[in-house]
Structure formats: structure tokens, C-alpha cells
């Protein structure tokens, strides 16, 4: 194939070598792949447009209902944000505890991680919804075992400052956020621990040698560098969390997106368009999150020479 390209016209024969007749490398495989993909896409578009089961009008109508939109904003987005705040904050704290020299702190962190990683989220959320039964008189904040101490001292009354109604706490969005947040903290603890351990110990030594306290070393030197390693899997976790909000059904949280869509679907006997509507909502939210992740990675990649990988990164962050 290349011998023709290299052959020079016989009559030209210049004194200096002429321009090389370069032929680009041919990629016949790519053309085959393009044809296959185009055909598949055409089939998909045809299916989407012509198949009556999609009932696009109903899909968009269902998506536009106020309870559904509320479910998306509160049940999906708000719960994702709040749970991830609890999860990331708790996870970093647990990771620092786990890596501490103090055996009590590291033991507590280990037990927490063990417990919450062991329980399936669906069952954890179901349990959170029923925890109120443990505290029929509410959750009181005050001196522990105050009734025993008061009894022992021969006094009366109580030493409680305020009491929460347990059935109010362990219900709805609050129970959902507590459950998802604590579960997430257990996973984030491992991610944060990996991030902290990825930072060269010489960094902490240099900071300590400058007289910085342990806390300052962590906040100003170690964590900012650990973030470079922590952010990509945290993006993954956020996307997984977005989807796990559909488990709020177990609490139950009836203001949740999929619950609302399903109730519309069962009213009108249209199951499939409802699944399509839910898919579209989750696609939309996930796409927005990926853009956010790109900017976060760029921020924490400063000074390391590597810009956040461009299009490749968001595509790779598909996740659970």
C-alpha cells in the first residue's frame, strides 16, 4: 500500500529531496464502527419516535406536575445535598480519627464504619423510619441517667433541658437525611483515608517543622492535597447518592420523586412512561453534577501540572 506513495516521479529527480508524499494512516476499522453506530442510533431514534408505548405527551405532562417537581427538588436534590454534607463532613472526620494515634478515636471510627457499611441502605432507611418506637417519651437532652441520680439523692423533678418527639425526628426527610448521611459517612471515611494517605509524609513533616499545629497541618497542607485524590470518587458517590434518594420510599418519604411519579402512573395505568420520566429527571441531574465535578477537580489540581482531564473525566464518572 505504501510503496506507491514512496515512489517518486522518474523525470523530476531534483537535486534536493522533494516534499514527502505522506499518506495518512488509514483506519478502515473506524469506518466500519461508524456505520454500525449510525445504524444503531437510527434504530433507537425510530423506536423513540414511533413506538406508542413511550407516550411522550404523558411523559412530559407527568414531569410537569407540581408534586413531582417538588419531589425532584426536595426529595432528590435537597436530600442529596444534605446527605452529602453530612457524609463528606462525617467521612473526613472519621478518616482523621481513624488515622489518629489515639486508639480510642481510631477504634470508634472503625466501629462506625463497620456498622454502617454492613447495613444495606434500603434496610437502614426502613429502620430509621421506625426508630421512634425506641423512644416513646421522646428524646430528651440533659444529664444522662438523671432519674436514677435524682432517685439516689432523694430529690424530685428532672434534669432535662428540652425534649424532641422521636416520632417527629425519625420520619420523612429528616430520617432520610440522617440515614443516608451516616451511611455515606462510612464510605466517605475510606475515600478520605485513602486521600490523606496518598499525601507524602514529608509534607506533614515540613509543616510540623515550621511549627504548625496538628490541626493546621491537616487543614492547610494535607487535606488540600488529599482533595485531589478525594474529589473524583466523591463525585461518584454524589451521583450514587442522587440515585439512592429513590430508596427514601423505605422510610417512607412520600414527597420523593419516584413515589410521586409512580402514583400518577398507577392512577392512569401508564407504568412505562413513568419510568421514562424518572430516567429523564435523573439524567438531567447527573449531567449537572458532572459539570460541577469538572470544576472542582480543576480547582484542586492546581500546582500539579495536570489539568482535570477534559471530556474523558465526566464520561468516566458513571458510577454505581
Amino acid at each position: 500500500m505504501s510503496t506507491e506513495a514512496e515512489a517518486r516521479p522518474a523525470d523530476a529527480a531534483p537535486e534536493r529531496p522533494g516534499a514527502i508524499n505522506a499518506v495518512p494512516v488509514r483506519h478502515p476499522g473506524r469506518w466500519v464502527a461508524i456505520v454500525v453506530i449510525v445504524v444503531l442510533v437510527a434504530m433507537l431514534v425510530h423506536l423513540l419516535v414511533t413506538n406508542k408505548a413511550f407516550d411522550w405527551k404523558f411523559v412530559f405532562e407527568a414531569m410537569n406536575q407540581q408534586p413531582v417537581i417538588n419531589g425532584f427538588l426536595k426529595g432528590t436534590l435537597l436530600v442529596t445535598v444534605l446527605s452529602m454534607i453530612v457524609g463528606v463532613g462525617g467521612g473526613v472526620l472519621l478518616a482523621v480519627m481513624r488515622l489518629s494515634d489515639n486508639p480510642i478515636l481510631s477504634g470508634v471510627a472503625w466501629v462506625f464504619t463497620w456498622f454502617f457499611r454492613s447495613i444495606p441502605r434500603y434496610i437502614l432507611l426502613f429502620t430509621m423510619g421506625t426508630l421512634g418506637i425506641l423512644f416513646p417519651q421522646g428524646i430528651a437532652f440533659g444529664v444522662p441517667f438523671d432519674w436514677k441520680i435524682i432517685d439516689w439523692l432523694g430529690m424530685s423533678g428532672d434534669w432535662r433541658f428540652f425534649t424532641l418527639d422521636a416520632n417527629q425526628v425519625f420520619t420523612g426527610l429528616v430520617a432520610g437525611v440522617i440515614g443516608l448521611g451516616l451511611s455515606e459517612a462510612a464510605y466517605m471515611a475510606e475515600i478520605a483515608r485513602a486521600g490523606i494517605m496518598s499525601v507524602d509524609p514529608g509534607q506533614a513533616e515540613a509543616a510540623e517543622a515550621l511549627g504548625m499545629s496538628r490541626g493546621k497541618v491537616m487543614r492547610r497542607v494535607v487535606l488540600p492535597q488529599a482533595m485531589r485524590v478525594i474529589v473524583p470518587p466523591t463525585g461518584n458517590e454524589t451521583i450514587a447518592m442522587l440515585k439512592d434518594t429513590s430508596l427514601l420510599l423505605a422510610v417512607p418519604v412520600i414527597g420523593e420523586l419516584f413515589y410521586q411519579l409512580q402514583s400518577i402512573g398507577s392512577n392512569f395505568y401508564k407504568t412505562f412512561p413513568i419510568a421514562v420520566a424518572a430516567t429523564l429527571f435523573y439524567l438531567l441531574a447527573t449531567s449537572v453534577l458532572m459539570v460541577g465535578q469538572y470544576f472542582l477537580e480543576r480547582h484542586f489540581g492546581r500546582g500539579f501540572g495536570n489539568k482535570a482531564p477534559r471530556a474523558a473525566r465526566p464520561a468516566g464518572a458513571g458510577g454505581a
Partner: protein
Amino acid sequence: MALVEIQNLHKSFGSNHVLRGIDFTVEEGEVVCVIGPSGSGKSTLLRCVNLLEVPQQGQVFVRGEDITDRDCHLDAARQQIGMVFQQFNLFPHLSVLDNCTVAQTTVLKRSKAAAEQIARDTLDRVGLSDKVSAYPMQLSGGQQQRVAIARALSMDPALMLFDEPTSALDPELVGDVLTVMRKLALDGMTMLVVTHEMAFAREVADRVVFMDAGVIVEQGPPAEVIGNPKEERTRTFLRRVLDPTHVEPTP
């Protein structure tokens, strides 16, 4: 009173007894070079001076204060001691200027403006005033090490520790760093330098300490220790360092 006084220092890593009873002082304004074969405990000794390594036995006094005492405010003691590492250990996520200001603002509570002014002055001292906004990874090894020296100097230390500061550098970059260190010594800085640069030790040091197998074998003015060593172990070491191609006759 000596700036640093070390008494009967012992340090082990597991069963490896690295320091075996070191007694040692550094006076104010003195430049001390510690030499010796690898594994002799030189770096461990240096790291015990600011307690990056905690000794099992013995005391380290900085300006008369025992920093191995549990009640001692270690962070305050470390502020007086600047340290330069073999691998530079600059903070890669901070610019050169921020590397030199972060400890000033967080530890010494200097204002941002004051800290930046001091950082610019010290960077000027090491000849890198044009690199303030660069990130460490954009600099050569020699430049990074000079930033590390500036970072330590920004804290106005009374003592500077150098842990093989030129060992990770390409040979042609060693000179720049040694020039900065020589200038520092001439300015009267108290320096404790672990080094393999015999020419530097001979020229700049007030005192050379030869260590081997966790003990100080001999110490004194460079002309004596390097020029005319008394101990056989020192002579063997210097022969190897000064003439690496020399082959010892087999007996």
C-alpha cells in the same frame, strides 16, 4: 548557654539501634557539618533536634528548654528551628510566595501584607525574586531547594537544620544551593548541616562531626577532622568519599 544541647541520646527503630548515646552541642553562630557513612544516624540525629523523631532516651535542650519534656510547647520550639529536607518537601498546591507565607500567617500570626513582604525579601536573598507566583513543580530541583531555604528563613529561625540538602540534586545544580548556604553562614546564621559535600564542609564549617554506627567518632575543626583525621574509621570513610575509584588492597 549553647543553642542546642543534646545529652545521651538514644533512638531505635524496632531492633535497629540507630543512635547509641550522643552528646553534642551547637553554639550560637556556629556552623556544624555532620559527615559519615549512610546508616550512621546523621539524619536521625538532625531530626531529633526538632523532634521529628522522638528519641527513646536522652534530652534535647533548645536555648536551655528541654523539648523532650512532655510539658514543653513543641510547636513554639520548632518556630525557632528552620529545616531543609533532602526532598525539598515544598507544598505543591501553593505558589512559591504562599509556601513562604503560610506558616508566617498561621503560626506567627503575621498580617498577610507583612508576611508577603518578608517572603519577598527572603526569596530575594536566595535569588528567586522572579519566581514568586510560580508553583514548585515548575521549578528545577535547585530552585525548589532554594525556595525551601527561603520558606524556613521567613520564620526568622535561630537555627537552620539541613538534611543532605544537595543529595537529590543534579550535579550542575548543587552549586547554586551551596552558594546560598555559604552566604547564610557568612551572615552569622547558626547551621547544622548533614552533608556529603566535603569541600563545603572544609570551607564553611566551624566544626565537623564524624559519625559512624550511631556514635560520634570524632569532631573538631575541618582541617583536623577532614585534613588530618585521628581515627581509623574516619580515615577509611574519607578515603572512600574523596577518592571513590580507589580500590583497597586486599590483605
